[in-house]
């Protein structure tokens, strides 16, 4: 059934202008050897983004572990309340804006041009500039607590009249840093989207864009609309704090603004951003499932539509995070529920793909594929994603109420956006890392990391959800020994510690295999890949490809493997 949907026996409709040779260059090609500066290569800058993201991941995880240590036992006094508030603020900001955001920007900008058969990004120097702007912004964010206390939560809304009572320049610097980070992200996103629209190889129609690139494009569209709202919000908050204006303080009617505005503005931007950071994880998982199953997805078109569905519907549920929006509450509940439907459809698509591979595929090849590390990461992501979706259903039904002010919120967000999105990023790293850096990660260590990170995440999230049921409020820094919260806190802390250990092993693995070059050489195509990035060397040359195979579907290499005699070297049927 699927093969009939994706079968492209008819030759693609290629615009004449896109054919090679139609715009023959007036210059001799050989004289134009690589005009772009080496510092603007998309694979290099993308790797820098990934490296910076991993560095900030370490920062975020260390902050989280300090919090979990404080909460592991009752009446602990490892950090005081004031330090604890700074810890959760910086942990949230660093994890979302300095880890999840840049890790996908990096993977996207490094992989997308390879997947669509382009030799570079549309604006190479803009990409390089965006990275250094991002790094400056990230440094400002991380340095902010050194100036003065920063303790209002990552939504910058606790206490409610947005930290206006908080003196000092720390929050100001945090806001400016976040503006820079978001601006850099917008520039990268524009670059990637334009690349997909304009630099696709001849024959690679929009419908044939590989599913990971497609997910990056959808996520990019969401970020393009949502991040600027956050830029505007952070900017206005900066104006309030630094220049003494009163948009988010004081009360309307007097000369001031409205304190209720801030959470609405923030969540209108931040809620879609969180989903946009999950979308590429789903795209990467789709790509890995299809490749390791040795076949196309059960329905590639439905997978594309599901991703677009998430991108559209994630704008509908932001009000469920804001306690004061009571009038339209049924709409927010529906909106927050609706976005989960396409995610569920996508998961069904993966399961069907795996089932078909088991039924029709070559048994040994499928077994080998399913035992490979990237596929194991995807299989490990499934329970975390499922738990996150289940928790999200409860959160949606309780829109604006308890589940958004107690630990249920923490558990739900960590299952979806730390758990699933991060595990997806690690899966993508183990899948495409060999392509980018020419070395495979360790198989044995990979399985160890997987057990620790997936198992630890599940424990941690279960502990947090249990705390939600027991109504422990977020931002609680300590508890009595006669509270019932002791057990769940211990479970969450133990889970967090296990995740931390797994991440240490993962980083050592990356350092040893890639930087020290001890990993097995990747070869051009370590996984039996289906898309164009596997049709060049690992690591690819600066200009990515010297030539490309004919592109007749979204999986050109799969076509080649299935009918090598039919397509190789034959003259074009239509020209």
């Amino acid at each position, binding site marked *: 059934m699927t093969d009939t949907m994706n079968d492209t026996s008819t030759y693609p409709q290629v615009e004449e*202008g*896109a054919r*090679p040779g139609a715009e023959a*260059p007036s210059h001799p*090609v*050989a004289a*134009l*050897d*690589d*005009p772009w500066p080496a510092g603007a290569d998309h694979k290099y800058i993308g790797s820098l983004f990934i490296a910076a993201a991993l560095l900030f991941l370490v920062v975020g995880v260390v902050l989280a572990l300090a919090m979990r240590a404080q909460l592991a036992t009752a009446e602990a006094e490892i950090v005081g309340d004031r330090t604890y508030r700074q810890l959760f603020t910086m942990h949230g900001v660093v994890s979302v804006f300095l880890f999840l955001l840049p890790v996908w920007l990096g993977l996207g900008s490094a992989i997308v041009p390879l997947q669509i*058969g*382009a*030799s570079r990004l*549309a*604006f190479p120097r803009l990409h390089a500039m965006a990275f250094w702007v991002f790094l400056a912004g990230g440094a400002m964010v991380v340095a902010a607590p050194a100036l003065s206390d920063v303790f209002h939560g990552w939504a910058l809304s606790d206490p409610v009249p947005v930290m206006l009572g908080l003196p000092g320049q720390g929050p100001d610097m945090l806001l400016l840093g976040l503006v820079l980070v978001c601006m850099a992200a*917008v520039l990268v996103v*524009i670059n990637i989207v*334009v690349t997909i629209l*304009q*630099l696709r*190889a001849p024959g690679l129609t929009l419908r044939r864009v590989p599913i990971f690139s497609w997910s990056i494009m959808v996520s990019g569209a969401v970020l*393009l609309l*949502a*991040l*600027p*709202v956050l830029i*505007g*919000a952070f900017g*206005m908050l900066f*104006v*309030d704090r630094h*220049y*003494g*204006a*009163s*948009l988010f303080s*004081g009360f*309307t*009617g007097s*000369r*001031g*603004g*409205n304190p209720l505005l801030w959470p609405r*503005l923030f969540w209108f*931007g931040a809620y879609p951003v969180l989903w946009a950071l999950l979308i590429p994880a789903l795209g990467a998982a789709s790509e890995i499932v299809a490749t390791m199953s040795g076949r196309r997805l059960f329905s590639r078109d439905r997978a594309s539509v599901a991703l677009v569905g998430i991108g559209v519907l994630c704008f509908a549920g932001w009000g469920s995070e804001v306690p004061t929006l009571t009038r339209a509450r049924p709409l927010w509940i529906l909106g927050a529920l609706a976005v989960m439907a396409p995610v569920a459809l996508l998961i069904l698509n993966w399961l069907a793909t795996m089932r078909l591979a088991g039924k029709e595929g070559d048994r040994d090849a499928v077994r080998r594929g399913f035992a490979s590390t990237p596929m194991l990461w995807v299989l490990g992501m499934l329970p975390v994603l499922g738990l996150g979706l289940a928790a999200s259903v409860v959160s949606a039904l309780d829109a604006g109420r308890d589940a958004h002010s107690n630990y249920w919120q923490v558990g739900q967000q960590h299952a979806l956006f730390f758990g699933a999105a991060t595990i997806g990023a690690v899966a993508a790293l183990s899948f495409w890392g060999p392509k980018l850096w020419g070395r495979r990660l360790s198989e044995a260590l990979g399985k160890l990391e997987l057990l620790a990170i997936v198992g630890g995440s599940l424990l941690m999230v279960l502990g947090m959800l249990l705390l939600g049921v027991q109504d422990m409020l977020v931002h609680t820094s300590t508890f009595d020994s006669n509270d019932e919260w002791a057990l769940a806190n211990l479970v969450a802390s133990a889970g967090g510690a296990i995740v931390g250990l797994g991440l240490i092993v993962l980083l050592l693995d990356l350092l040893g295999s890639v930087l020290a070059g001890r990993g097995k050489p990747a070869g051009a*195509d370590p996984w039996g890949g289906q898309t164009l990035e596997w*049709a*060049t*060397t690992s690591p*690819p*040359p600066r*200009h990515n*490809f*010297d*030539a*490309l195979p*004919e592109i007749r579907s979204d999986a050109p*290499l799969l076509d080649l493997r299935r009918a090598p005699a039919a397509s*190789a*070297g034959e003259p074009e049927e239509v020209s």
Partner: protein
Amino acid sequence: MAMVAVSPTDNLPVPASGRAPIVLPSGEPLPGPVPGRPRRGTSTIGTLLLCTASAMVLGAVMAVYFAIKEGSTTWPPSDVHVGTYIPTIITITAIMSGFSVQWGIFSARRNDGRNAVMALILTLFLGLAMANLEWLTFVRSGFGFNDHAYGTLYDVLIGFHLLHLLAAIVMLLVLSFRTMAGHFSGDRHDALRAGAVFWQYTNVVWFTVVTVLFIFSRHG
């Protein structure tokens, strides 16, 4: 002054060094299409996306403006007296600059470098005039930046346009130099078109700001 396409970076062919062997599962090199090179209009599409992002920032500011306005008893506050004279002059200048930048594009399309440069310089002058008048609206508003929420939003909205205008002026200045240097031709002037798109978007920002500040709110 006819224009010649000599820009080294527009519509580059893919460098083929011959150093990277193509590796396929079958192991043999395949003759195939060359890797994608940019289709026409890449800069213009990038600029359009940038304008979309910027419009969302403006949207966030306007959402705050309308939310605070709805909750206020008098809007603008009773002691605010801002004339509509300067904003009207700026609006007329913006419309004129919209036409002049379009003149530049039409000239470039006809490969008429002299007229294109003249149009761009005229547009630059109109832009500088607008920036000057906007500065005047700050200085002569009669209220401070943080006197009240209206004052803050007034300055933020006009400042938002002023920032875009200054960016557009720098952009157009570079583009007019490039036109004089002969970087564009009748069928290759994508960067010029992108600059014009940004200029027109800046004008749209101004029309929005004027509508919000002066048409939807009464001034003396």
